[in-house]
């Protein structure tokens, strides 16, 4: 049996061929091409030559690297806020509310995330804009004299980003907290632990794999988000994916766009790698 499996069998070939084609044709080769393209430019004669210009442009032009740092900082901030908002909800659903409701609540939690991100962002737009629903009610209640534009600023953008990717934090947190034995919390309580020490010394260490996997996905989705910063972040809140889009679609400078894409890829993988190292988790365990 084992000896037979080491040899190449028909089922093995059936399984391995489509997987290899998928991974090499759609993941590996395109990314190699992305890397190669980012080191090429068109010279004055119109021929393509090797060059570092695309990367030098990035450092020369402050708007590029400022947008890049801004995107990274806001993505990290968004991930932290998402965690802080989600942990109490996950804890409530798994440990506090009566078990009869916990299934219903977690189902309710999932519902909005089946709906397209565009619809959710659009919902926020009609709630928050100058002629929006919230302004309407505030004016009616006499709390405002004239409508206020609540869109197109950084606070709204971060709120939108948190809203967009919250599910990917709540779900892993619920699944790790379900496996936390209640008697550990009871024991800590009997020994005189307060809420703060129970949270930091029992709940968070136990929930670490869920926190890391949620954090990675939220961070990656936020960093690569285009819709939310573009629609409710407004003109002056530049996001790095918008720079990539501009290079590809507006300026039609694909080589420059490829360099930006590669920089974004390096940024996301290195921050994810640092996150894994700091928390001593492995990627293959985290995605389980």
């Amino acid at each position, binding site marked *: 049996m084992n000896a037979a499996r080491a040899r190449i069998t028909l089922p093995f070939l059936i399984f391995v061929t489509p997987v290899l084609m998928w991974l090499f044709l759609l993941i590996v080769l395109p990314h190699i091409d992305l890397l190669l393209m980012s080191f090429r430019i068109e010279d004055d004669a119109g021929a393509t030559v090797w060059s570092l210009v695309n990367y030098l442009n990035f450092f020369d032009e402050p708007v590029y690297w400022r947008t890049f740092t801004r995107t990274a900082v806001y993505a990290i901030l968004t991930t932290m806020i998402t965690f802080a908002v989600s942990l109490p909800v996950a804890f409530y659903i798994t440990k506090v509310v009566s078990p009869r409701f916990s299934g219903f609540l977690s189902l309710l939690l999932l519902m909005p995330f089946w709906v*397209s991100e565009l619809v959710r962002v659009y*919902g926020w737009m*009609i*709630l928050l804009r100058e002629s929006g629903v919230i302004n309407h009610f505030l004016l009616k209640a006499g709390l405002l004299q004239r409508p206020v534009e609540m869109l197109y600023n950084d606070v709204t953008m971060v709120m939108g980003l948190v809203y967009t990717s919250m599910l990917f934090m709540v779900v892993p947190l619920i699944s790790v907290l379900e496996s936390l034995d209640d008697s550990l919390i009871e024991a800590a309580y009997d020994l005189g632990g307060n809420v703060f020490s129970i949270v930091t010394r029992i709940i968070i260490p136990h929930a670490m794999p869920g926190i890391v996997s949620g954090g990675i996905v939220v961070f990656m989705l936020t960093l690569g988000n285009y819709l939310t910063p573009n629609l409710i972040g407004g003109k002056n809140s530049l996001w790095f994916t918008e720079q990539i889009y501009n290079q590809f679609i507006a300026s039609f400078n694909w080589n420059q766009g490829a360099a930006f894409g590669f920089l974004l*890829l390096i940024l996301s993988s290195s921050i994810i790698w640092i996150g894994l190292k700091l928390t001593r988790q492995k990627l293959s365990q985290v995605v389980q």
Partner: protein
Amino acid sequence: MIRSLPNTRSYTLGFKLYVALFFVFLFAPLFVTCVLAFNDSQFPALPWKGFTLEWFTADLPERVGIFHDSLNLSAIQVSFKVAFWVSIFSTLVGTCGAFLFEQENFRFKQALYFLMLAPLVVPGVILGISILLFANTLGMFFENTLSMDVPLFRPGFWLVVLGQFSFISTLVTLVVSARLKKFDRSLEEAALNLGATRLQVIWHITLKFLRPAIIGAFAVAFLMSFENFNTTLFLVGSQTTLPITLYLQVRDGSTPVINAVSFLLIVGTSLLAVINLSFSRKKE
């Protein structure tokens, strides 16, 4: 602190309030979008001017409901077609992937497994541009050396399908693998002892066992494809999918038709999610 421990009233009340606010935050944008789809006004805004179905059914010069809006209708059709092919391909390949990583042993398995996980940590925008670039490179190669014009390599329907397939397959692989891990391999051994070939075992026994996971993965793949924006943005040609069409409309100002489309999407996806969930509950 938890159910089994004595809690102060303010703790319980505060917690309840927080979770209630959280759910309001969660549902407010969807609720408002749905309600304003039925407002008898030219703009998706309050004040409430009365209930109407015109944003769905009307075909008037100043008001075209969604059922007569050819732009959005054709985008919905494109999205359905894309989602159909993406879920077929990714379910097939993802199931192969699950078998490969759960039941086979080979050199570089760990490395290939890592590669399979990569699309989860690569931003969708990057997947989109890298596939666009690679298709363009291939297209130029075919044109220059073989003087063949291959439509597949230009932005368009099939490139969108391939782009979405590239990361949705990873999700299918993970979903099907999770179920395959629970499979009792002695069932396979029994069938093999009784003279079945490996392929017969897979077809008659393992795939039967995996069916709920495969159907569930198909539904998830369909939804993910239907609402994908980031990867699709760079790969669309003249036939745009619904999220892209809606984005272009929202960016340039909005009419309640968008609310009507959103309402249909919310109802549709919720129904699909509930059906999928009750189906997987029954099988458990």
